[in-house]
């Protein structure tokens, strides 16, 4: 028996659903893989911060500054708790993209075991979002390191048959996604993590598509770094998370320089604050961090395990429906195994943009195109797909409208 969520009660917490889309249709939001909608609790948390606690953190000696610092550090502790980490291991960034750029830039500047030099190897995979590819590409170019990657199989899994050749003693960093943002496929990362650690490399996990949707515990996963974005987890835009093992963060050089991140400063030299402050130059995104903490409260209130089960239920229902529509092809994993709540599909003879346009007439919001994963698309021989991604505010009725709109898209161009 699948666990169920009281989706109608959940929907009421999300004001975005209280409006009509084109043609007076209700909103069927199936683009949470790109960004999630926000519950009123998150907006309230930001509003309350601005209306009662707003001051620059870690600076003033007055009451408001104390409250702001407490709220901000409280948010840090909340994020730490969410992923089973220590508070001093959580770095707030503006986005997961910035978190990954921070890592790449810092490894270049660092000395010791994390330093990247000419001839070192960096490993990614063909599944990666551009954000977990380009920072490493550029790092390799700047340092003379070699970028290597795991190839993707047609079912969206990774080809680990040559793992010993991909991860060698020269490898310093392995950066892989926890779940493909395009196909929803979940790569088997355990053997990759083991291989990385066996050669002394660090493992960076891109948790953007997993952390908001299932329980994630960094200790259990045995990874060294994890990044995720706040806005995909019901939180505000402008807040991202970098988690790193504290001993590693302590070895790393800063990414951005300025206020807050220093220990001492003279006209010629400066020294750095301890991690995580070392990586948070300038007045941080305080209200957004507080909003993210409220989002995590919301997610934990519903329960990540239940959310995950519910999404699997919706995904199974949607997959069954899509498989029954002639001319529609699911791209990537065909069944529910080794996948999350993201489905990419194509309709024979139709361009994703045109498909999305027809679906929009039904109030259905889906993503179309290459989904910031162009190498993956090329590998599949496609220019793009249409992608539906589910979250806790979707129900079976949403999936039914979705399936109806897919059929309508096929027929709209087929019949005319």
């Amino acid at each position, binding site marked *: 028996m699948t666990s169920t969520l009281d989706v109608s009660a959940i929907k009421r917490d999300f004001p975005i659903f209280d409006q009509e889309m*084109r*043609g007076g249709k209700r909103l069927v939001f199936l683009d949470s893989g790109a960004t999630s909608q926000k519950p009123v609790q998150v907006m309230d948390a930001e509003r309350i911060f601005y209306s009662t606690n707003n001051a620059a953190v870690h600076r003033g000696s007055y009451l408001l500054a104390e409250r702001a610092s407490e709220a901000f550090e409280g948010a840090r502790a909340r994020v730490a708790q969410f992923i089973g980490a220590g508070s001093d291991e959580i770095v707030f960034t503006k986005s997961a993209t910035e978190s990954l750029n921070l890592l790449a830039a810092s490894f270049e500047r660092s000395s010791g075991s994390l330093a990247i030099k000419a001839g070192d190897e960096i490993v990614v995979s063909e599944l990666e979002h551009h954000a977990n590819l380009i920072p490493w590409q550029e790092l390799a170019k700047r340092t003379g390191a070699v970028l290597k990657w795991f190839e993707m199989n047609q079912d969206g899994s990774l080809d680990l048959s040559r793992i010993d050749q991909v991860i060698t003693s020269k490898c310093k960093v392995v950066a892989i996604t926890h779940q493909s943002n395009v196909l929803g496929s979940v790569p088997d990362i355990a053997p990759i993590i083991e291989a990385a650690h066996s050669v002394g490399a660090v493992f960076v996990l891109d948790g953007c598509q997993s952390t908001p949707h299932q329980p994630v515990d960094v200790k259990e996963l045995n990874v060294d770094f994890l990044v995720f974005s706040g806005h995909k987890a019901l939180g505000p835009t402008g807040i991202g998370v970098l988690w790193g093992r504290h001993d590693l963060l302590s070895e790393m050089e800063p990414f951005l320089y300025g206020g807050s991140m220093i220990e001492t400063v003279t006209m010629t030299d400066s020294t750095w604050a301890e991690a995580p402050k070392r990586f948070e130059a300038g007045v941080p995104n305080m209200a957004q961090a507080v909003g993210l903490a409220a989002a995590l409260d919301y997610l934990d209130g519903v329960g990540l395990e239940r959310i995950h089960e519910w999404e699997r239920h919706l995904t199974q229902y949607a997959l069954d429906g899509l498989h029954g529509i002639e001319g529609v092809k699911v791209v990537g994993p065909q069944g529910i195994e080794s996948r999350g709540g993201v489905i990419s599909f194509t309709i024979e003879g139709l*361009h*994703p*943009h*045109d498909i999305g*346009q*027809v679906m929009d*007439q039904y109030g259905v919001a889906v993503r*179309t*195109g*290459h989904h910031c994963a*162009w190498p993956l*698309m090329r590998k599949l021989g496609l*220019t*793009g797909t249409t992608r539906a991604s589910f979250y806790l505010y979707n129900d079976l009725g949403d999936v039914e409208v979705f399936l109806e709109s897919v059929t309508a898209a096929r027929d*709209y*161009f087929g019949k*005319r």
Partner: protein
Amino acid sequence: MELDSLYQAVILDHYKQPHHKGLPVGEFQVRHINPNCGDEITLSLSIEDGKVTNLIWDGVGCSISQASASIMSDLVDGKSIESAGKVLQEFTELMQSKGSKSGDEEILEDAIALAGVSKFPARVKCALLSWMAFKDAAIQNGAEL
């Protein structure tokens, strides 16, 4: 249905049977890409006696971008640089009008069918992709546009 104002029959006809589509062979080939969706077009043309000739394009894209390329080719191939420039300007203005202009049918001919696109901001780039490629190619061939 609102959709029918976007996907007019004339657009779907051009989409299914695009004109001037083939392998671009001209000296100056331009390649334009819409990085949002990955659509692309390669286009070449010549300019002889002040006239646009030998316009050929190839590409992948949605119905709007493919139909627009086909319609654009019909409209500018064989025209003087000056008249082609006029069509380009009229079409660009129409696309950027957010639905406030209906366009001059005398100048735009079949392209008038794309007027509905201007009400869908996400699709304006699709419609303009080939026109920008044409402009670029013409300039590379020494035209002043």
